[in-house]
């Protein structure tokens, strides 16, 4: 690590020592002083577009200066409360409100809106604006999920900068010029990016809102629960927002080790199934509702002693706790059953030291093999983009088709014949970029959605890693694929020819085999495949479940229930224990904690389960002193 020079700055009388180059707004945060910002966002490059952050800085010209683009210097004195600074910010706010519709009472952002808050804290108490305001169509649908209310926009460009810098797309742009500038999607076509939803979180006003949540509720009426996304193996941290038993929105929860505050659209918008009125809630045998006891006994009778004639389809998002209980069933009464896990890759369990997601930042050369990262591991894809465009890493992609990482002009894209990725990896050892990489090399590999021979590919990647001193990251797809692999339950068997089938979660991808005579379903939604099922058990959705997932880098994270699993729904660990009992294996757990403690003891990879952390405390809001002019 090169030594970073530290400098002393005085902000409103507090002396703070920070690394040279720190921005004034960031230095102020360290002493609990909030400088209001619109365009500045700590994950985007500063632009200084909105001037909300004006403060007095000396030495310097006798005008208020933007604190979001000014790096500190030794001996700098910053005053956020001088008469000049206070008035400058109030004036800026007055301008912001010239065309603002002030429709806070019907605006979804109301209650968590920086414009509202800053106007209260820093603005003039009354308005002098009585002229006509700009009007636009209201709202403009930007995509099926996002609505744009142009007159609320303060033109901070966070949304378009995010699209450009972080997601490497430009389907959202600023059209027109000056006072007529508006945010627009390209040729007014719907946004298609898998990363579009983040602009809702970024927008500091109610210009960009979620159409799924529009007019649903006020933010202060919601209960929120910190949890983990259950849609893929990246394991982004999310906040689940619940109101009256309904999951009403999902937002990102910044974790710099994993997601840096971004989530993909699958994680953000794919939640409405939780509130589906058609949700399965009562167990049924041959189509008629019954009790759990009857239903579970029927299942037990149907699957007991079937050996390899029993097939089990596993969901991709089963928790470690469920997997642990299931492992005990597989070791006991269900020994020999064929298991097929949904959505998993063909990759084997990892061995040796792995690359962590945050290490991608420091890589000088990144090699991505046989993975469509944009869709398979979306937020890892954003990490790679950051390393390339913000930190100058070189990128090599081995994939048969065009991928979104090709948008960078310097991406080296080697198009392999499907199935030949391993051969291309072997050739890489002599690639010019790997001669003098000048720093860490990262190799991320998938399984080409089944088109590659996984074992051969892993061997080739491991070989290359050893040659060039790289670290490896297997790109699993299934949400808890890694945890299930470590617990030895992530089966990859064909279910053809089984006589009894337990479909846990969505039906098997290859369909229900014709040979099945007894079909038990454990799912949260009714589906056509359930038609001839002997037993249907209702399952909890991700929002009602508790437990843990192991993400693709091996990090164990905790899922917390945002919505209560109301009876007759039963928590899945409970169902598994009762099923085990019906199968003659007494599993007596009184709650999820004993399961976690036991799993932690039995599997070193799950050691983190021994002590689930309490949900992190709410961040304390930083407030500025009296600031109104």
């Amino acid at each position, binding site marked *: 690590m090169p030594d970073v020079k530290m400098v002393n700055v005085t902000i409103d009388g507090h002396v703070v020592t920070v690394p040279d180059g720190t921005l004034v707004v960031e230095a102020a945060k360290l002493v609990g002083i909030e400088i209001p910002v619109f365009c500045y966002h700590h994950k985007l490059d500063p632009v200084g577009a909105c001037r909300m952050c004006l403060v007095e800085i000396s030495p310097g010209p006798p005008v208020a200066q933007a604190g979001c683009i000014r790096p500190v210097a030794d001996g700098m004195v910053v005053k956020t409360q001088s008469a000049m600074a206070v008035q400058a910010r109030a004036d800026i706010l007055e301008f912001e409100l010239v065309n603002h519709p002030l429709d806070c009472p019907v605006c979804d952002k109301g209650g968590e809106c920086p414009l509202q808050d800053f106007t209260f804290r820093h603005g003039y108490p009354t308005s002098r604006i009585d002229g006509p305001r700009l009007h636009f169509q209201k709202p403009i649908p930007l995509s099926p999920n996002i609505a744009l209310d142009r007159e609320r926009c303060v033109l901070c460009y966070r949304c378009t900068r995010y699209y450009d810098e972080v997601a490497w797309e430009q389907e959202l*742009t600023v*059209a*027109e010029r000056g006072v007529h500038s508006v945010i627009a999607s*390209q040729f007014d076509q719907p946004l298609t990016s898998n990363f579009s939803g983040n602009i809702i979180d970024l927008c500091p006003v109610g210009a960009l809102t979620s159409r799924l949540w529009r007019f649903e509720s006020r933010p202060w009426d919601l209960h929120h629960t910190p949890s983990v996304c259950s849609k893929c193996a990246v394991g982004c941290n999310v906040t689940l927002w619940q109101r009256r038993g309904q999951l009403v929105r999902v937002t990102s929860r910044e974790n710099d080790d994993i997601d840096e505050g971004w989530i993909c659209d699958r994680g953000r918008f794919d939640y409405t199934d939780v509130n589906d009125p058609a949700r399965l809630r009562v167990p049924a045998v041959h189509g008629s509702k019954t009790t759990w006891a009857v239903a579970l006994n029927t299942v037990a009778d149907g699957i007991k002693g079937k050996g390899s004639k029993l097939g089990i389809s596993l969901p991709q998002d089963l928790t470690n706790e469920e997997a642990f209980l299931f492992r005990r069933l597989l070791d006991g009464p269900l020994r020999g059953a064929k298991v097929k896990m949904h959505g998993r890759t063909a990759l084997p369990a990892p061995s040796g030291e792995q690359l962590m997601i945050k290490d991608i930042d420091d890589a000088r050369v990144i090699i991505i093999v046989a993975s469509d990262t944009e869709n398979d591991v979306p937020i890892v894809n954003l990490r790679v983009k950051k390393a390339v465009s913000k930190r100058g890493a070189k990128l090599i992609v081995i994939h048969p088709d065009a991928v979104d990482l090709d948008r960078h002009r310097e991406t080296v894209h080697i198009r392999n014949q499907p199935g030949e990725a391993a051969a291309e990896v072997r050739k890489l050892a002599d690639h010019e970029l790997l001669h003098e990489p000048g720093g860490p090399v990262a190799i991320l590999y998938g399984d080409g959605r089944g088109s590659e021979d996984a074992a051969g590919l892993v061997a080739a990647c491991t070989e290359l890693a050893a040659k060039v001193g790289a670290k490896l990251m297997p790109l699993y797809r299934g949400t808890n694929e890694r945890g299930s692999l470590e617990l030895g339950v992530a089966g990859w068997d064909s279910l053809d020819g089984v006589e009894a089938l337990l479909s846990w979660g969505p039906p098997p991808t290859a369909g229900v085999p014709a040979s099945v005579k007894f079909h038990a379903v454990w799912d949260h939604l009714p589906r056509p495949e359930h038609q001839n099922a002997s037993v249907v058990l209702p399952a909890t959705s991700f929002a009602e479940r508790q437990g843990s997932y192991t993400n693709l880098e091996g990090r164990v994270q905790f899922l917390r229930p945002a919505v209560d699993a109301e009876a007759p729904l039963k928590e899945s660990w409970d169902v598994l224990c009762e099923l085990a009992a019906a199968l003659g294996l007494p599993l007596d757990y009184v709650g999820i904690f004993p399961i976690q403690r036991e799993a932690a003891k039995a599997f070193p990879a799950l050691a983190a389960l021994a002590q689930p952390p309490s949900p992190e405390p709410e961040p304390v809001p930083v407030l500025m002193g009296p600031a109104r002019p």
Partner: protein
Amino acid sequence: MSALSSHLLEEIKALPAKYPQPRSAVMPALDLAQEELGHLTPEAMSEVAVALQLDPGYVEGVATFYTLFHLEPVGKHRFYVCTNLSCMLRGAEDVVDRLKAAIGVREPGEVSKDGLFSYEEVECLGACEYAPVVRLDHRYEVDLTRGKIDSLVNDRRLVRSHVKTGVRSSLDTTPEPPRKKPVRRTKKSG
């Protein structure tokens, strides 16, 4: 069918090499496209984007920023009437009124029925000493009078009917303009 001709697309593809940032080529590229089509359609912008390996949205953003890129059809001949200070003092409003009457339109951007003309009001053209001034296509017409405006318009109408019928109007006393292809403007870089 692509909106832009293939030789034009080739020309556009060669542009980025001239700039340190390849995307700087977007302006001259749009300029070429507009020369060819008269105005920039979404298809044309998308083709420029593909040729320059940019996103259509970015190209659209640039095109909408500059008033000299037309997103709607414009007349074959475009009058850019200066209505800034010097010209205003020397009768720019009269020029606008006369021009509207002469080409038969009601507002800026509207195209005359024959498709030949449209006009726009612009800021100072930097030729205040000759006020009132109008830029007609790529030429400045200076020290305008009502008569001069009428003849600028009529000349182009007559040329048009002459070209169409092959017969020159007996009223047409202006010398026959040279029938050159329009010169392609290419913006200088930098």
